[in-house]
């Protein structure tokens, strides 16, 4: 079994067998992470550059930790400390970095397609850590890993994504990945935050959060951003909470035992109440833990390593 691409740009056209390979490898790495010394020499001698053109805390830390756990050499590059502020183009930036001999590039950028653009400029393998409102494949992989871990399966589940669907890269990658793995995906959010023709992606659009909760096995709750309010897309955070907020009262109406997920960072008391975020249904911190394992798997497999060797090498 081999990966079809040497890059991970998104989950849109990825095969179920490749997703399974990422997840299986991630579960193996999760075991590594539970050892007394959670570090393996698998990527020793490989150089990874983390290019973060957008603010990010958890994704950047998660990648960095994954790289360190794999013994790779890492370079961090963020906009605030870089020549981008001096007007350098993305193409020039990456070409300069690549000329220092880089094996893997992890990129977070505000422009959709930026990761794809990068593959046209460099020879290194590219991992998309979020390209604008397009895709965030490692987030979707860690979401799927968490679902698999908790519910023992993905196929046949009904996963409803709630919130700002239009501006969510997490949502797109989740739709593509979950559908590939045989789950039903639903969405729920204010009309102006739903992208046109979203139903053509094969998702169910739930008109109200109550209807979504009634049918869901998993709720993946997205962060609502205040700037959308200023853009005229919804009236207020208060109103948002009233109509779409995941409150205890609403969760109590669920017919099944719900799994509550959130990619973070959370706005407590807006899209999700603390009682839920910290409650028995929540797997939000498990997502973060699994994030490191998933990123280790992605780095490992994209650096050309064979998944069957992982356990041997890591012992």
């Amino acid at each position, binding site marked *: 079994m081999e990966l079809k691409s040497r890059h991970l740009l998104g989950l*849109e056209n990825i095969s179920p067998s490749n997703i399974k390979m990422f997840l299986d490898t991630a579960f193996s790495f999760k075991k590594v992470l539970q050892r007394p010394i959670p570090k393996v020499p698998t990527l020793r001698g490989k150089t990874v550059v983390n290019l973060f053109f957008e603010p990010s805390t958890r994704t950047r830390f998660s990648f960095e930790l994954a790289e360190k756990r794999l013994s790779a050499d890492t370079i961090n590059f963020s906009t605030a400390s870089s020549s981008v502020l001096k007007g350098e*183009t*993305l*193409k020039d930036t990456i070409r300069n970095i690549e000329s220092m001999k880089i094996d893997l590039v992890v990129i977070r*950028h*505000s*422009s*959709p*397609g*930026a990761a*794809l*653009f990068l593959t046209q400029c460099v020879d290194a393998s590219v991992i998309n850590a979020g*390209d*604008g*409102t*397009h*895709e965030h494949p490692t987030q979707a992989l860690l979401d799927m890993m968490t679902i698999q871990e908790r519910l023992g399966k993905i196929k046949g589940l009904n996963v409803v994504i709630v919130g700002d669907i239009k501006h969510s*890269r997490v949502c*797109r990658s989740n739709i593509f990945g979950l559908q590939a793995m045989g789950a039903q995906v639903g969405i729920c959010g204010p009309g102006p935050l739903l*992208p*046109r*023709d*979203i139903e*053509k*992606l094969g998702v169910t659009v739930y008109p109200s959060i109550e209807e979504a909760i009634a049918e869901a096995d998993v709720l993946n709750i997205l962060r609502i951003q205040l700037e959308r309010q200023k*853009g005229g897309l919804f009236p207020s955070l208060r109103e948002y909470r009233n109509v779409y907020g995941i409150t205890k009262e609403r969760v109590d109406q669920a017919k099944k035992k719900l799994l509550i997920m959130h990619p973070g960072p959370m706005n407590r008391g807006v899209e999700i109440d603390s009682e839920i975020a910290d409650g028995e249904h929540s797997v939000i911190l498990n997502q973060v833990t699994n994030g490191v394992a998933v990123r280790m798997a992605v780095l490992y497999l994209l650096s050309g390593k064979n998944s069957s060797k992982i356990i041997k090498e890591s012992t």
Partner: protein
Amino acid sequence: MSNKVTDEDIDILLLKNGHILDPNANIDRVADILIEKDTIKEIGKNISKHGKTIDCKDKTIVPGLIDMHTHLREPGYEYKETIATGVAAARAGGFTAIACMPNTNPVIDSRSYIEFIKKRAKGLLVDVYPIGSVTKGMLGEELTEMGDMVAAGAVGFSDDGLPIKNSLILRSSLEYSKIFGTPIIEHCEDLNLSGDGVMNEGYYATLLGLSAIPSISEEVMVMRDILIAEFTHSPIHIAHVSTKGSVKIIEDAKKRGVKVTAETCPHYLLLTDKNLTSFDTNMKMKPPLRTEEDKKALIEGLTKGVIDVIASDHAPHHSDEKDIEFNKAAFGIIGLETTVGLILTHFVNKRIFSLPDFIEMMSVRPRKILDLPLITIDKNSPANITILDVNQEWKVDKNTFKSKSRNTPFEGWEMKGKSVGVINNGKYYLNI
């Protein structure tokens, strides 16, 4: 690249055995054309005259084509294009005339800038017709001195690149420009609805996560403009129509007798938002590439005469402005050197449009809209001619372009049909 355009002067020029096609002169036959200086002296069989002779066997000789929507970028953006390189591109692409939009820096908003363009283009084969801005500095606030600009050679007015947001200003401009016989050409876009959009709103934008421009962004403005033009009994020309809804609105208006005309561009007839899946910045323009349904409606609109004109919206940009992230890339593509080939290949040769239709869309109607003298291939008429080889096969190679810019989405396309020569103003240029 040389900035100088050189055309060959005509003393005597004999076009032998071409298929002369000019529905307005009621001519559709194989014959010779004798040109002396800038005038057609004789049309007939077996003309013999000592002088330069061009074998036009299997070529089609049509009235000179005009591209009524181009951006020449001079003054201000000479690194993208100049009047000289734009004219060279037009000449190579089969046009004997072009109209150029005023969104330069400074904006073409007064007599002296019109004079500047006329002076730059003086004595060239290709006629350059400047379009002045509707509002000073294209700021949408105050009307420009249109009368003064018309006297200096402006043929129309537009704030192209931007809509005229203020409905009162649009109304005034329509009422005011009418006395000069010059049209207002509108870039129909509701900037609020467009927001920070970079492609058409719909399935593909949803798939790609790119911020999107809805079809209604164009259509609400087409509707508003038509209502104001109808109210003021003024002519209005809608630039670069891209949606099915606009075609319908224009069709209904024409039926009511509104003096509305419209153009579309080759890219809206041949590409759709599906082409954006490669994040190719040469697929990025305003209005954006729409859906298959819109494309079909535009083609039908042209065949029914709802859309009057095909223009290129030639919008040169430097590679530095295109070879970057999609969101940041400039809007616009070049088209002067591909338009004729694309329309011949995909429409005339596929019998969707006839050659007389093609002449209507690319010579006759744009001239009527801009109130320019009509061209006929007739004895004693000025020799203003495009020579087509409708069967010649070629491949688009942007590195051979005369334009300064390379931002074409049609690179590598296989073509059948091209312009092989143009004649105008006592000069000729061959591209055989």
